[in-house]
């Protein structure tokens, strides 16, 4: 830190030369749009060769007092317009006209601890304007980004609104540390790990869904090392910088109001057998099994399969197949959910302050009963100038999200979708005596629908205060304090009608309160100057202290007097628990950049992070990065080119780290309590302790080095903008819960083991196809491919029940570990599996990695049209080459082995029946491998898709019409999502995934599909 001050003092003399002038003059004028001649309020005006900056007022006017002499050169910039350099030779009545920018090249891009113009950017950053995504009916801004940013793969794994989203920036780099990007909202590193503790069948809520997308101004995704290394240990998985709306100095108060309403429903459901079909199949299964049992001389089998279960009731059976009824449970569960959205904002400013106040409410009902998501938000951003040199401000967001939850995922007890989908269709919903029937371990669907009572309320504050001072010209000091506080209140109540709360439990209630607090204190000192016209330097140094604490207090009660009592205080049996964990991070960082004549750019940054999670010898990690750029357009040979309006080559290399996702005390050998035991038969539990975790004092940072080369090309006056990036990321010392041999008494320990490589390409193309006075057509297209490979891993690690997923050296992550069904023998109907080791039998040794949930490429195509007041947007997203393991079908094509315990899918009807049948669905039998070898490749399906993720159609009313009513703009719009999907996958949603576990992706079981939605809305500003 002291070094920083020395730096500042050393640079002092260099910057004072501009001030020793005399005989001041006043310059005044107006900044306008070159085409519309409308004044531009809040445009930045800089007098070249001075340190003077000014802003236009709400009439676009400016006033300058300067010591410069005429002629003077203005550098004028305004968001969405090309920066202009205009030399004038008059003092008053100056008119500075700006032309609207065609492409994003002149955009201001938010980078770590600062902003840059895109044309001088040498790192790889995708910027998404909030206007492009804010109407997409997803609860979280992360889900809205699908198909919008090159290199960012996003999948919504479920139709439950506000649930976690799978997001990977340039592939997955880690196994047990987090793979999610760092989210920075107005400088606050916000928590994006779910605080959920109650079970919803494996899925978890998303903390990102707390944020109201309507408050967002822009989103930048930082991808390469030169962009992310300034975030050091937080940067390995990319950084998503979210900038919320602020007022503008000199802007008159503007009120905007937006509301939309619509419907959401599932576009496709599952195709199930009818009752008679189910019965026929099960009888066939019994017949075949009996034949096989007899052939094998298996006495127990002969007894078990002696009689078909669907035989006349009089004969002790369940009735003949044709007597069976069909009960459609899916129709009962699925519904058309309602979507409502309201946002109100006030924005403006005076010469010395600016403000943004936004309030919003949105309600999203899922396509299944009774999952709802409500969010209310309040946002207050204020900035105040104190004199010329000092600015203070604050950002404040208060969010309240309330969720009606349900177990829409794995697990029978209380599993909502499983109860509807996995209960055989022939089974009635009520018993003969009229009581609700429960089958196969699943709860009764009506009972669940009517009695579900699982709620979560998340109350969250994200905010900061900052002060910024220009100590000497161009040397800025900034300090800020930030807080992300989340109070997460969960309650579950299973009354005595539900299976979980039924007699003998007599009501089961859980209450869990989790509090997560992150505070951050940060100082930066930055200096920027241009020397001798062409040499521009920038220096930034800073430090951050960050603390995080998370506590959970939970209580559970069973044995309630009646369903009228819902609080644990009324329960006969009560248990409670408490956990608390804490981590600190201390960081120091710096960045130096230099450019010569906006032609050659070089940048170096470094961050040192110290983490309390590691042993004292490994606490600090150092994360440097270097990048360079060459803007060929500035060279003489291109300067005059009409074809090429911009060309820049970029390269960067750097190292980022990762420590997220591991537990706070992962390096320590721990003994825990919680193993109480009585000392004798007369006594109750006395405290006990046990060795809980193996120490690893060598545990250290996971490191990812990344090299990126890229090019930015503008053609035809920037009507076509192309950005290409190639990258390779090598992760070493991967943080891993490494299995340890069980004879040690432990299952695993945290270690740095393994290497993962990601390499890929990203291409983004933006074109203005047509740009007339009345008609515009703009297209943006992006495509990315990422090749992920585990370069080294000491032992393979498997995940999920039945070890569906396996990480293994030489293969990609999210790979499926299966027995490969080659074909079904047309003569015998037996499934033939690949005998990998040729030992004549199918054993574990024959399981192999077949397919992965990682796509070969993915991206988006967005087209926007405007014609007079009309606008039309078509946003497609696509993904190709990823596999999905269809676990619903795995159960639904169980061949009758589960008899009355599971549904049979209609696809089961394609089973082999007689010699000569060509099918991949084997003969129904309990014997052999046909249905007992569970990890069958038959259920692995192609998950590629192309979908129309959003269609927007809007009409903005003519200005003169509404002006009389006092409106500035009025826009009516329609938005539809998921209106169209092309896929091969047999289930409804190829993006489905049953769990929030980070190494499992592409397992479709019991989650509701993403809905198709239509909404109508109106947007008014006054």
């Amino acid at each position, binding site marked *: 830190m002291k070094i920083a001050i020395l730096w500042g003092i050393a640079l002092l003399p260099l910057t004072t030369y501009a001030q020793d002038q005399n005989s001041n003059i006043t310059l005044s004028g107006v900044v306008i749009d070159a085409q519309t001649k409308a004044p531009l309020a809040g445009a930045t005006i800089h007098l070249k060769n001075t340190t003077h900056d000014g802003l236009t007022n709400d009439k676009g006017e400016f006033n300058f007092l300067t010591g410069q002499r005429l002629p003077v050169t203005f550098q004028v910039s305004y968001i969405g317009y090309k920066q202009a350099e205009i030399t004038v030779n008059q003092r008053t009545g100056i008119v500075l006209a700006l032309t609207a920018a065609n492409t994003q090249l002149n955009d201001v891009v938010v980078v770590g601890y600062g902003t840059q113009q895109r044309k001088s950017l040498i790192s790889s950053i995708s910027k998404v304007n909030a206007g492009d995504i804010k109407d997409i009916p997803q609860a979280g801004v992360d889900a809205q980004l699908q198909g919008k940013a090159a290199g960012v793969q996003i999948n919504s794994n479920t139709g439950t609104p506000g649930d976690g989203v799978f997001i990977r920036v340039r592939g997955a780099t880690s196994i047990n540390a987090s793979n999610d990007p760092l989210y920075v909202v107005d400088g606050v590193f916000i928590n994006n790990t779910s605080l959920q503790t109650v079970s919803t069948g494996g899925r978890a809520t998303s903390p990102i869904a707390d944020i109201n997308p309507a408050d967002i101004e822009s989103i930048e995704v930082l991808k390469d090392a030169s962009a992310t290394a300034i975030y050091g240990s937080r940067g390995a998985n990319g950084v998503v910088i979210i900038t919320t709306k602020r007022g503008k100095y000199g802007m008159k108060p503007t009120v905007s109001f937006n509301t939309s309403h619509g419907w959401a429903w599932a576009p496709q459901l599952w195709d199930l057998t009818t009752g008679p079909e189910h019965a026929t199949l099960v009888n066939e299964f019994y017949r075949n099994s009996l034949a096989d049992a007899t052939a094998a001389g298996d006495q127990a089998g002969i007894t078990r399969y002696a009689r078909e279960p669907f035989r006349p009731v009089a004969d002790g059976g369940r009735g003949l197949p044709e007597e069976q009824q069909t009960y459609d449970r899916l129709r009962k569960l699925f519904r058309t959910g309602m979507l409502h959205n309201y946002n109100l904002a006030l924005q403006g400013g005076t010469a010395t302050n600016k403000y943004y106040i936004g309030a919003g409410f949105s309600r999203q009902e899922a396509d299944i009963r009774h999952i709802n998501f409500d969010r209310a938000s309040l946002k207050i951003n204020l900035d105040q100038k104190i004199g010329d040199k000092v600015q203070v401000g604050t950002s404040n967001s208060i969010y309240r999200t309330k969720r009606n939850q349900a177990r829409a995922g794995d697990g029978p007890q209380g599993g909502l979708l499983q109860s509807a989908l996995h209960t055989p269709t022939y089974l009635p919903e009520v018993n003969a005596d009229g009581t609700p029937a429960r089958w196969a371990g699943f709860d009764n669907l009506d009972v669940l629908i009517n009695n579900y009572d699982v709620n979560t309320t998340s109350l969250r504050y994200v905010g900061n205060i900052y002060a910024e001072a220009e100590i000497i010209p161009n040397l800025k000091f900034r300090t800020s304090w930030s807080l992300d506080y989340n109070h997460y209140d969960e309650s579950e109540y299973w009354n005595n009608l539900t299976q979980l709360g039924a007699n003998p439990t007599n009501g089961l209630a859980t209450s869990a309160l989790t509090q997560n607090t992150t505070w951050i204190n940060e100082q930066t000192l930055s200096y920027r100057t241009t020397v001798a016209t062409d040499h521009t330097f920038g220096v930034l140094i800073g430090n951050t202290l960050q603390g995080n604490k998370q506590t959970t207090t939970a209580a559970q009660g069973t044995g309630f007097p009646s369903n009228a009592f819902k609080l644990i205080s009324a329960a006969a049996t009560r248990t409670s628990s408490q956990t608390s964990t804490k981590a600190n991070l201390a960081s120091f960082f710096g960045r130096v950049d230099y450019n010569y004549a906006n032609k050659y750019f070089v940048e170096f940054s470094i961050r040192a992070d110290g983490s309390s999670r590691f042993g004292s010898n490994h606490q600090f990690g150092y994360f440097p990065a270097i990048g360079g750029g060459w803007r060929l357009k500035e060279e003489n040979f291109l300067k005059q080119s009409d074809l090429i309006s911009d060309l820049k080559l970029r390269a960067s290399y750097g190292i980022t780290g990762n420590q997220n996702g591991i537990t706070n005390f992962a390096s320590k050998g721990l003994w825990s309590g919680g193993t109480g035991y009585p000392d004798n038969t007369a006594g109750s539990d006395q405290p006990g302790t046990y060795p809980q975790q193996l*120490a690893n004092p060598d545990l250290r940072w996971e490191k990812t080095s990344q090299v990126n080369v890229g090019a930015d090309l503008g053609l035809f006056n920037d009507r076509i903008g192309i950005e290409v990036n190639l990258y390779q990321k090598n992760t070493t010392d991967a943080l891993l819960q490494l299995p340890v041999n069980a004879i040690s008494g432990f299952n695993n320990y945290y270690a740095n083991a393994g290497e993962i490589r990601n390499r890929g390409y990203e291409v983004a193309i933006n074109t203005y196809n047509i740009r007339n006075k009345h008609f515009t057509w703009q297209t943006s297209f992006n495509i990315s491919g990422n090749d992920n490979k585990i370069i080294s891993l000491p032992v393979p690690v498997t995940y999920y029940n039945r070890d569906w997923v396996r990480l293994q050296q030489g293969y990609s992550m999210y790979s499926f570990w299966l027995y490969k069904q080659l074909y079904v023998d047309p003569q015998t109907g037996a499934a033939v599996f690949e005998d990998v080791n040729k030992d004549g039998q199918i054993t574990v040794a024959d399981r192999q990695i077949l397919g992965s949930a990682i796509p070969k490429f993915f991206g988006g195509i967005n087209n926007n049209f405007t014609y007079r007041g009309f606008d039309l947007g078509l946003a497609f997203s696509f993904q190709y080459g990823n596999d999905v393991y269809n676990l619903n079908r795995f159960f639904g094509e169980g061949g009758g082995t589960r008899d009355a315990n599971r549904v049979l899918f209609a696809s089961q009807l394609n089973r082999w029946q007689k010699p000569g049948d060509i099918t991949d669905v084997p003969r129904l039998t309990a014997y052999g491998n046909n249905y007992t070898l569970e990890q069958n490749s038959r259920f692995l399906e192609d998950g590629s898709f192309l979908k129309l993720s959003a269609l927007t159609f809007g009409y903005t009313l003519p200005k003169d019409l509404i002006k009389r009513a006092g409106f500035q703009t009025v826009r009516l719009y329609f938005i539809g999502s998921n209106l169209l999907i092309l896929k091969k996958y047999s289930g409804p949603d190829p993006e489905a995934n049953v769990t929030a576990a980070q190494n499992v992706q592409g397992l479709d079981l019991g989650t509701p599909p993403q809905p198709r939605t239509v909404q109508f809305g109106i947007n008014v500003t006054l």
Partner: protein
Amino acid sequence: MRTRTYIFSLLAGASLLSCNKFLDVAPEDAVSDENSPVIIDKASAETAVRGLYRAVSADGYYGTTFQAIGYLSGDNIQWTGSQSIIQQFISHNVRADNASIANAWSAIYVAINRANHIIAKVPNVTDPLLTGALKNQFTGEGYFVRALAYFDLARTWGGVQITLTPTVTAGDKYNIRRSTLAQTYAQVLSDLVAADSLLPATTNRYRATRKTVWALRARYHLYQEQWAAAEDYAGRVIADSANYKLVQPYSAFFANGAVATSESVFELPYSTTYPNTHRNSWQPPANNGTRQWAPNDAFIALVNDPAVGGNRSALVARTSAGLWYGNLYYRPNPATDPSYVIRIAEEYLIRAEARAHLGNLSGALSDLNAVRSRAGLAPSEATTADDILLAIENERRLEFAFEPHRWFDLLRTKRAATVLGLTNSDRYVMPIPAAEILNDASLEQNHGY
């Protein structure tokens, strides 16, 4: 400017100075053994011993999984659920990637590691409050649990890797080859002998005493076909009739919420805080369970036959829809069914079997009939040694229907081929978990897996 610099340096300096302290964060819900050993005084020794018993009662060990391996592999149970890993036991076709196998294997070694900590550390504690007698007791309990654990490993998997030291680092337990079955059993005996010498001859059904050691030793000698010793040790426990007796009727040791009856020599208790999930697999959905497995038709017929099952028919019950289910583990709320590790009935039947082999047929019959009479059955009509042995075998099938005996009994008496039709002797041991084979180059898989 000067003031600003001053304030700024102060802030920066303060943050640097306090950095080390800032990054030193201690856990609040666990203690770290980084700088100091954890077992250091009386309190820490006794809490560690309680943690040891909680390992024995864990889900993977005597809570559910290990017990299930013992009874599912017999001939009393059918599978009715969705997880076919259960069916693998019933059809004796267990695969090396069976999750129950992996759970039980690691749960048993967890208990061994906790025992090793106690055996290694408790004797060295210098706390005046931790008297020599207490030290002996705690260490003896460590030896007893370790003996039980290796015994269970040996009868399930054959000879296994033997580890006798606490695990300190992740690399500690590599390069250990499997011991032979004889060596593994030798370790069991050595631990039993050590426990015998250290433990007091008190009565405690929840924790090991010298009498618990005798009871397990009787079983050990039975498995070794050391009949005289088996008779001797079983007899020592039976002799303590003031403390151990066959409770009347059969169901008295578990029904109506009974715990720690005179029937139990070693029983593991559960509580609201530490519930036993075992009931979930047995009880039908109507009772809030999954009935993942259930007594099969053959067993239902036997246990309900008044001449065979007697009052042991209390082991099963029927739902209103007519589904039979096992009812030994039934306590709903809280789920506090004990795990019955050693019951006095077993000691009677051990002694009966030993006596039959030793030619003491009347003694054998008398022990057998003690168990039969408690079940409300007439005395056995068996006369020859072979008949008596068969009668004992059948008696054990009913008496311990839902406890982990039947499978191991048929293996040790070499009757699995006859009774279960299981002729492939590779299947007489379970496969070593596939993940362990992968993870440990010195660990060899059992033949045929």
